[in-house]
């Protein structure tokens, strides 16, 4: 007997999510088609889709006549045309927070890595060196970590930071006082956050307001023993200002997981600096986060299958009749 729903999967997805809806769903991977375009040409036969980065524009969605739910694997949905989805009464939902623990741990890993020079020390040992004094580090205990923003990933970072002996400050104009843990102190100004912190980590989305919001003034305030960590979005930081601050010794170092242009490219001036630790947008890239995103996206599909709106529905005002489809 054929299953009741056809579900389209992204090329890479942790198997635990699809396995959890196998009782009602017949799942097909995009990679089972010759190309992504071929899969999208066939979108008319699917009731649901778990989606990562595939572009769903109006042309594609106009053909998605059976589609009831687009379950984003992750948070950002800028690859979906909301108006076209609304015309088909398709519910759009996501999995916010599923990678928060992974991002928080990456922040602490980068901070420890920069403070203890682990990447350059590793390179030095492999090259036959043993100049220990060059790699003198700095303890985290007793330092203050400033968090710019206080959403899911900042919250996870704060818990880890306090666990390792750091004090935590935040500049988060949109968070209410009673949403902050008792031992996280608030400051009212971004530059003041940098002034009062030994390290600052960015946890804000990229918006007009946050674009280049970390620049020369903030880095000057962070100071010559300060470290900047960015796992949010590259353009939250004025990259040229970081390079200047590092060159001038205005700050001590940086741990960067996101960049203005990704891939960064070998010719980028950051690539020759020992005082930066660079990773290719790996904050949320762990086995555990991949499993959680897969499971939550699948659970959202089940919710819609059972006639409900997922808690993380992003277009509920557009979907008043979506459930009757």
């Amino acid at each position, binding site marked *: 007997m054929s299953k009741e729903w056809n579900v389209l999967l992204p090329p*890479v997805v942790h198997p635990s999510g699809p396995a959890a809806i196998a009782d009602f769903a017949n799942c097909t991977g995009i990679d089972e088609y010759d190309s992504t375009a071929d899969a999208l040409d066939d979108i008319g036969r699917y009731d649901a889709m778990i989606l990562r980065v595939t572009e769903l524009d109006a042309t594609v969605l106009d053909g998605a006549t059976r589609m009831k739910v687009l379950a984003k694997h992750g948070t950002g949905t800028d690859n979906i045309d909301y108006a076209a989805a609304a015309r088909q009464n398709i519910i759009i939902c996501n999995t916010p927070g599923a990678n928060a*623990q*992974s991002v928080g*741990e*990456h922040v*602490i*890993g*980068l901070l*420890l*890595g920069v*403070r*203890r*020079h*682990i*990447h350059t*020390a*590793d*390179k*030095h*040992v*492999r090259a*036959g*060196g*043993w*100049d*220990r*004094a060059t*790699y*003198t*580090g*700095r*303890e*985290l*205990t007793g330092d203050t970590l400033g968090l710019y923003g206080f959403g899911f990933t900042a919250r996870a970072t704060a818990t*880890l930071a*306090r*666990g*390792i*002996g750091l004090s935590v400050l935040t500049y988060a104009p949109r968070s209410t006082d009673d949403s902050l843990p008792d031992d996280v102190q608030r400051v009212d100004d971004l530059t003041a956050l940098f002034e009062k912190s030994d390290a600052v980590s960015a946890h804000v989305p990229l918006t007009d307001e946050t674009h280049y919001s970390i620049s020369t003034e903030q880095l000057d305030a962070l100071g010559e023993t300060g470290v900047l960590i960015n796992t949010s979005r590259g353009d939250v930081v004025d990259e040229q200002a970081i390079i200047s601050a590092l060159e001038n010794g205005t700050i001590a170092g940086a741990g960067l997981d996101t960049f203005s242009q*990704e*891939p*960064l*490219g*070998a*010719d980028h001036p950051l*690539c*020759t600096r020992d005082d930066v*630790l*660079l*990773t*290719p*947008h*790996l904050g949320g*890239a*762990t*086995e*555990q*986060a*991949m499993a959680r995103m897969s499971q939550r996206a699948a659970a959202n599909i089940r919710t819609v299958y059972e006639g409900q709106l997922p808690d993380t529905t992003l277009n509920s005002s557009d979907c008043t009749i979506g459930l009757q489809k």
Partner: protein
Amino acid sequence: MSKEWDILLPKQIDRSGPESLTDFAQCTRITEYERTDDALADIDQYDAIIVRTADLSAEVLARAERLKVIAKHGTGLDNIDIEAASRHGIVVCNTPGVNARSVAEQTIALLFGLRRNLHTADRHVRNGGWDRAAFVGRELQGDTLGLMGFGAIARETAAIAQGVGLEITIYDPHHADSKVPAGIERVDSLTELCAQSDAVSLHAPLTPETRHAIGAEQLNALGSDGVIINTARGGIIDESALVDALDEGLVGGAGLDNFEQEPPGADNPLYDYDRVLLTPHLGGVTENALERMSRRAADNVRTVYHGALPESTVNREDLDQEVLQ
């Protein structure tokens, strides 16, 4: 007016310790002499010496007529002839425990570094790469960290590890049950520790009993997802067994700050593996630990100046007490 005591200082020392002694002492750096031997030839001019690596042999100490205290900056006393010092009534003391927090943080830094591939991801980005799927990491939260030994450094490591969400299991045959904090499991063999843990960190001295204690059997028990961390002493791990285990994929990785031979040489087989993170014995090398060593060594000098014995005196029983008067 000249100060009452003359103190000889090592080449490198945080200034906070010497500065705290200026009320009664004038300090001379060993580097103010042309050579270390010239400084040691002048040893009879000094009432105290803060020493790091200079060789204080019986011959040197025989001429140290005014010397009352040898304050070791650090723990190891291999460079001091303690018997000769005792014969001349010279107090020998050191600064144990001051680097415990630094070593513990290095342990956690190596663990994060391995789990998130920080050193190899950094290398990849600098070479122009952006293959994110190749560096998918693993969260620490919920994993079990096994500690071999439960002395001061292991206890600091346990506190940090619990703070970042790890479970702790220990193996320490020399540790009383009553001293193990609640929430920490205990096992009766090293192989059992490896079998029950996702990561194992070594915190034991190198003794005939611990030499090559981590061999093929323990690495097999740790398993293909497990990692071993060594910030204690090289030689506890059988390095050739580790290379074999890495080669066969029997162990997931290793974070090594210590080696059987230090420096580990220009062409050590460990360098062939990306799943190892190597640092040049940096566990205790932080500004914070160096400052504490400087202050404690200076405090020890002051204690002797006041006619008392420092708590960390190592030749208490052998001293001719009159000399202190």
